[in-house]
Every structure is written in C-alpha cells, then in structure tokens.
C-alpha cells in the first residue's frame, strides 16, 4: 500500500466582537428574543443603505496585519448574490476581488517545531439570519426566520493548503483562535458559533507535488468534530484511491450522528454568486500612517509572550505554553506579577488549583472568578506564614466559589496559623511526651519518625501549626539543642 499524505487548508469564519453590527447600530449580543436586535438596515428593507462599522474594519485589519498580509488600497466591498430566506437582501455584502488582507502567512508551533501556513486572503462580511423550523409549524410547511444575527460582522480567513497532518491542522486551528483572542477581536467561542472552521482536504501519494481533488467539509461545530471529520475524510479518500475509485471535488457535510461525511446535492453548491462592487459603500483607502498606527497597537502575540515567560519569568517551557495558550491566563499571570509577586508562585497556583477548578466547573478561562489581586494576597498570606499550604488551598477554593478575598476567608474560618514559638513549643513537648518511642528512634539517627511527629503536632493544632516551624522545633528538641 502506497503511503499517502493529507493536504489540508481552512476557511475560518470568526465573529468579530464589536458591540454593534457591521452595517447598522443593532446590538450583536447573543441570546436575545428573535428579531429584537433588528432595524430597517439589517432587515434589508427597501431604501436602506449600509454604513460600515469602523471598529469591525479595524478588527479585521488587525488580523490581516498580524498575518503579515498586504492590505490593498483601495479595498472594496462586493455583493455576493444568492437567494436564501435567511438572507434579508438576497445578497451578502462581502469582499472578493480586493479584500482587506492578501498574501500573508501565519506561524505556529506543532510539537515544539515552528510551522508556517500561507494566508490567501482575509475579508470582512455580514452574517445571515437563522431559519427556525418549529415542530408544530413544519407540518404545515412553515418556517420562521430570526434576523438577530443578520449583519453581525464576520471575518473570513482563507489559508493555503499547507497543512500535512491532523496534528498540524489541530495546531493551526488552536493557533488561529489564540491569535484572535490575543488581538481581542473575537470571543472565538466555538460552541456559540463565534468561530467556525471549514476544512478542505485532499490526499496524495507521499512525495507527490500535485494536489488531489479537494473536498470541503461543512457543518462542524467543535474542535473535536473538525478533527473527526478530517480523519474520516482522509481515510475515505485514501480508501477510494486504493479501490481505484474517483474522489470528486465537492462539498460534504459532517453527519455527527453517523460519524461520517456525506455529499451535498450538487445543486446546492452550483452557485454563480454574480459578485460585483457594492455601490452603496465607498472604496476604502488606507494611509500608511493609519496602518502603522494599527500595527503599533498590536499586543504581544502568543509566541513572543511564551518566550518572555520562559526567559524573564523563568517558567518551564511546558508551563509557559499552557499559560499562553489562553490569553486570559497570560493576562492573569502578567497582572499578578505586576503586583509584585514571584512568577513561579503564581504559575504554581494557576497550573495547579486554578486549572483544576476551572476544569471541574467547566468554566472558560475568561470566566475565572478569582482576580489576580486576590491570588497575590493569598500568596502573601502564605509567604508571611499566616496560613499553611493546606489552608491556602482551602482558601483558594472558597475564593473561587465566592469571589471573597483571602483575608476575609482566613478570618471567618479561623485559619490563622500558629507561628508563636512558645505556643508551638507547648504542643511539641506534649507530643514528645506522649510518643517516647518514635522520639527515641529519631534521636538514634532514624529520619522517618520525624514525619510522624510533625503529623502529630499538626493534628494537635488542628492543622494550624506553622509546619516549617514545627519541623525546626522538633529537630532542635530531639537533638537536645
């Protein structure tokens, strides 16, 4: 059997995180009752005109610049004409011949190795509405339309077919999502449809330089299903070639229930969109100063941040990768360190308790209930010896649940640590008196009994004893110092 390699590219649709829609003032907030975030413009009523949302344009340009694209000047909007009941005007304002970004590249890491993918084009467009097929109505052949989404700004990022494995595809998707979050232009939450990936996949014998027939896969709505769909498609195509069958250039839909891709009827994809320049919007001319200004606003991107965390914070590469994988994490540690605490201490808390609790509660990193200041205060309490590590973990958990400050929790729960030497000495003496045998063994040179004795002191103090001090006191007593 010949060895095959997959050739994968992506079209990414990302919803831009503007407050209002791309061509009108309506809110983009999800979850509103149907058709409440609409106006004559996004409903496409006769006579209305679009007015471009500058923030949407700026967000799009930031991505184009971060992907090293050239920005055509002028860039223009065009109309993509097709009839569909969720499309109010029966055309979508999009970009085709002169989009806001052309011929760029995007670099990310796969298994610690850098990988570069070409970005063919980046363009702005408006989202469509949503068809609803209520059970009781569909019987009568009726459907409803909700236009709340109509006019929500979308950014489409089209990559070249440069990915050669599932791992690369996964890393690319994660990397792009990370970029959008870092640039603060999209919430990019896949489960809310804020970012959608459409893969195009072909396979070819390894070493071949020609491209096979490419298949586009739609209807995937989580990272997991994208990966599954790609895996399925690669296997299907290899199988087809092995059997001497033809692979058609076509669009296929992912069928989640059956775990397979199925061909769309060819009628559905044979569109002639009759693109032409949108006469209701003016060509966009960008000055170098304007574009440079946007570049100057560009925040530190993930790769640079990872390097800084390793070099300046002294974090292990693994920790640095995890903490930069989500912008919210990286922002958290930066904010905490800025308050004057050791990066390592913050990182330990984040890699441990914070990740654990977020996972357990199923919370997104942005939804972290603990503020950087609160963690810094907690670390300070530990470093000052006011509470021990066991107590600190309990405090953190409560902080996570309630959002209260560490100091208040420590007070309420009586967590104040016993660090007073005379009080500790009294407990140590009592423990030694009650356990003469381990004391004797330690005195005879065995190490083990020390741990037991420390544990006894902690138990006597109901966990409040300052453990390092107890250690020290026991050692001194038993060595007769």
């Amino acid at each position, binding site marked *: 059997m010949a060895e095959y390699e997959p050739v994968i590219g992506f079209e990414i649709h990302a919803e831009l995180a503007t407050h209002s829609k791309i061509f009108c003032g309506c809110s983009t907030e999800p979850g509103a009752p149907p058709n409440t975030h609409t106006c004559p413009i996004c409903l496409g009523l006769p006579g209305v005109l679009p007015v471009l949302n500058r923030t949407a344009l700026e967000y799009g340009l930031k991505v184009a610049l971060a992907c090293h694209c050239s920005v055509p000047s002028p860039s223009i909007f065009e109309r993509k004409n097709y009839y569909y009941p969720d499309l109010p005007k029966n055309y979508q304002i999009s970009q085709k011949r002169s989009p806001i970004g052309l011929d760029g590249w995007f670099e990310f890491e796969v298994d610690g190795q850098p990988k570069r993918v070409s970005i063919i084009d980046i363009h702005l467009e408006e989202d469509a509405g949503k068809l609803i097929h209520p059970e009781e109505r569909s019987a009568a052949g009726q459907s409803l339309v909700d236009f709340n989404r109509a006019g929500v700004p979308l950014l489409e990022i089209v990559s070249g077919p440069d990915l050669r494995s599932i791992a690369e595809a996964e890393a690319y998707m994660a990397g792009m999502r990370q970029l959008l979050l870092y640039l603060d232009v999209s919430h990019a939450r896949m489960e809310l449809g804020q970012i959608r990936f459409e893969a195009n996949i072909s396979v070819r014998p390894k070493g071949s330089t020609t491209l096979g027939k490419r298949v586009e896969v739609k209807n995937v709505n989580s990272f997991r299903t994208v990966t599954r769909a790609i895996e399925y498609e690669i296997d299907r195509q290899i199988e087809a070639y092995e059997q001497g069958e033809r692979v058609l250039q076509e669009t296929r839909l992912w069928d989640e229930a059956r775990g397979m891709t199925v061909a769309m009827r060819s009628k559905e994809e044979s569109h002639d969109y*009759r*693109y032409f320049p949108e006469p209701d919007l003016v060509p966009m001319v960008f000055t170098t100063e304007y574009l440079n200004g946007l570049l100057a606003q560009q925040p530190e991107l993930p790769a640079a941040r990872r390097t800084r965390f390793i070099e300046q914070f002294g974090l292990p590469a693994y920790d640095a990768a995890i903490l930069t994988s989500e912008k919210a994490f990286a922002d958290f540690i930066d904010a905490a360190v800025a308050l004057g605490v050791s990066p390592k201490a913050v990182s330990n808390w984040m890699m441990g308790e914070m990740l654990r609790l977020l996972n357990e509660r199923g919370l997104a990193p942005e939804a972290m209930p603990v503020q950087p200041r609160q963690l810094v205060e907690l670390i300070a309490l530990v470093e000052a010896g006011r509470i021990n590590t066991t107590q600190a973990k309990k405090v953190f958990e409560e902080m996570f649940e309630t959002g209260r400050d560490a100091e208040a929790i420590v007070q309420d729960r009586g967590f104040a640590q016993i660090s007073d030497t005379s009080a500790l000495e009294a407990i140590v003496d009592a423990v030694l008196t009650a356990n003469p045998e381990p004391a004797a063994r330690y005195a005879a040179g065995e190490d083990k009994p020390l741990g037991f004795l420390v544990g006894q002191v902690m138990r006597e103090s109901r966990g409040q004893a300052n453990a390092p001090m107890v250690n020290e006191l026991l050692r001194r007593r038993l060595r007769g110092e």
Partner: protein
Amino acid sequence: MGLHSAMPDLHTLTAHAAHELLVTKAISARELLDAVYARIDAVDERVHSYVLLMREQADAVSARVDAKIAAGESIGPLEGIPLALKDILCTQGIPTTCCSRVLEGFVPPYDATVVRRLDDAGVVTVGKTNMDEFAMGSSTENSAFGPSRNPWDLARVPGGSSGGSASAIGADEALIALGTDTGGSIRQPAAYCGVVGMKPTYGRVSRYGLIAFASSLDQIGPITKDVRDAALLMNAIGGPDPCDSTCYPEPAPDFTEKLGRDITGMKIGVPREFFSQEGVQVDPGVAEAVHAALRVLEAQGAIVEECSLPNVRFSLPIYYIIAPAEASSNLARYDGVEFGYRAPGTRDIVSMMTDTRDAGFGMEVKRRIMLGTYALSSGYYDAYYLKASQVRTLIRQDFERAFAQYDVLVTPTAPTVAFPLGAKVDDPMQMYLNDICTIPINMAGVPSISVPCGYDQGLPVGLQFITAHWDETTLLQAAYAYEQATGWSRRAIDEIERVTMAG
C-alpha cells in the same frame, strides 16, 4: 379665474411667491393647501399624478405653520408649501409602493432622509406620485397603477419615471415636487411637462430611504415651476448624511447664491453628440428651440461654442449594462419573505419566491432583472460589467475635460417632445433611446437641470444645462439667467389651464 381677482389662483403659485403671501398674511397655509387639493380634485382623475393623497398629515402640518405665523414667528422659505413626493421615497407609516405590485402592503417603518428634511423645513406633503415601476421607464406607462398623463395633451405621456411628480407640477397639483433621476427620470418628464427638473451631483442628496433602482446612478432632485424654487428645494434636501456613505461629506452651498448674477463671459459648450448620434437624431423642432435658446444666452453675454464629448455615444449601451446589473441585485429582496406581496398558495420556499416575483413584477422590471443578471454572470462579468465600468470612466473624463474649458454645457433634454401614450410600449429600444440626452450625465455623475425653452408641435421642449461636479450654483445661475430672459416657465400656466380643465 386668476384674471378677475387681485389674488392669483393659489395652486398656480411658485413656492417663493406663495411664501411672500404667507409671511405678509395675505393667505394662510390652510388656504394654499385647500387650493391645491381643490385643484387635485378637479383634474387628477384625468391627469393621474397621484397614487396616494395624505390629506390628514398635510392638514396637520399646514395648521402648525399657520399657528406659527399667527404667533408672529418667522417661517422658512418652504414652510407651508404643498409638495408632491415620488412614491419611491420611504415615508414612515405611509405605504410606499414604487408603483409595483410586489410592494403591495409595504409600510416603511422609517422616513427617507429627504422626507425628514422636508418635515424639518415645514414642507406640506400633499401625496405620493405615480411613476414607472421601480423607476424603470420613460413614460409612467410601466406603473402598476396605470399611466399618468401629460397636462399639455392628455393623450400623451408625461415622461418618466418621475412622470407623476412632473405632471403634478405641470398641472398645478402641487407647488413643488421631488423626483428621482437614474438616467433622466427627473429631467425628461420635466421637459415633457414644461416645468423645471434638476438632477444634483451624484452624492449631493442622501439616497437613504430612496428605494434603489441603480445605486450608483440614482439621485433625488426637485421638480418645480421655476429655477428659484428648485434652488430653494435643494437648500432643504442637500448636504451630508451619515446614513449614506456615498453622500458628499462637505456641507452644501446656498443654492440660491448665484441666482440673478450676470452671465457675461460665461463659457458655454454645446456638445454635438447630443444633437445627432448614430441611430438617433434630435427632432428638428426641438433642435430649433434649443438653438434659439443658445442665441438668448449669447445675447446675455455668454460665449457659446460647439464642442465634442466623443465617448458619450457609448452611454446608452453602458447604462443598459450597469443599471440593470445593480437593479438585478437591488430587487432581489422582493421575494415575499419579509414584506410586501407574497404569492398565495405556494408549496415551498422556491416556488414562494418565484411565484411572488413572477406575479409581483411587471414586464419591464423583469426584462431589466434578466439583462442585469446576465451581465453579472460568471464568464460575462469581464466582458460586460467590468468593460462598462471602464467605459463609464471614459465618459466621466470626457465631461471633466469639457469642464476644464467650459463653465456650462447646454443640450436638449430629450430628442423629442412628449409622445403619445402607447407609442413606444412595444418597442423598448425606442423607449430607451428617448433618454439619450440625459443618461450620459448620470454616467458622469455631474449635475444638470432642464428648463422649458419653447414649443415644438405645441408641446414643451426642455433645455438641459450641465456643470461640473458639485457646481450646482453655476448650473442654477445659468438656468435662472435663461429663464428670466425668456419667461417660458410663466407662460405655461394659462396653456395648461386650458387643456386640463377641458378634458
């Protein structure tokens, strides 16, 4: 009538004359409006300028104006002046049809920017006027509500597409009107009805709320009894609008600024392509009237020279690619899903859309949608739409070159006078050729105005003035100078009285 009393028939007044009478309290806004409605009641059954009257709103607005006058407050130049509004402009809470069946039942939830500005100016909108469906036509014969008629000869068309607005002004059924002009739809009917019609520079007046036919060509403008009224109406509607990105961002000038200024030394070019082109010749009677007008301008000190705009000859074919292409997309939204007419008894979404469009659109609209769809189709785009856009640039450059040399260009507005109803309905090409003198101006985006310049076969002839982009004040200056020297506009009134009242 007017001859026997000191007070003229109020409906025959120009806006500026009516304003003088209002501020001196010689008349009230109420009396003025009543006179206009009385006139409509008397003649509109024959002329059919209006598709909808707005008596209730009009009464309320004129009452407010009278209250202001009674309270001693000053009023603006158009306050209390009755206006006819082309039914292509969206009016909040009032049906807006584009004279198409497909918009049956559509009531806009918003006002067009110009409508809001008219309200702000205290203008009294009398009703909405007839037009060719979606402004596609040159005679109003494509209206779903039946044609309007020319007040000079009821057997003839008033022109189009703003035929109802022009016939309303011609027949004194309003003092001023708004039309829209994509390829001559203000100027040609103004010429046919013996009134003044102006298409401002593309971008001078906001298109927000103007139901689009061809977005890159459509422009709103005044249809009035004289040039001063056109300037006053421009003052009310012109200027930047944040709702229209294609609207010129600079503040509009005072359009009356140069009215009455001497035109001595003004350089006037007369492009020969507007008199004779392959396939179409301006009627001798029309050409004669235009040449007589040029002599009048010369007598006033203007320097008149023949000139050439060679690429103008491509205007018609280019127009019939670009305008239908944009229209095919603009009119895609009339599918029965959200608003307007929906064909009954359809089985699925595809048949709902196709049945709705089949029954909702008239022949000419369908013809243009098909033309435009074809021109944009894959494989044809480069040969048609793209090529047309390039030629459009050449036409624009022709005008720019001409205006480096001349202050104003003067041409006939249309190659003929008003033609009989039905004469061209079966021959779209003949109908299209009627716009040969006006379409080039839309292609270039420059402003132009048509003013009456005499008669051919007893019917009014239009004289078209054209100036450079954004130079409407010079345009109005030249047209005003001509009008004042000849008085054609005033002479029209008695003639019309005879025809329309006789019918």
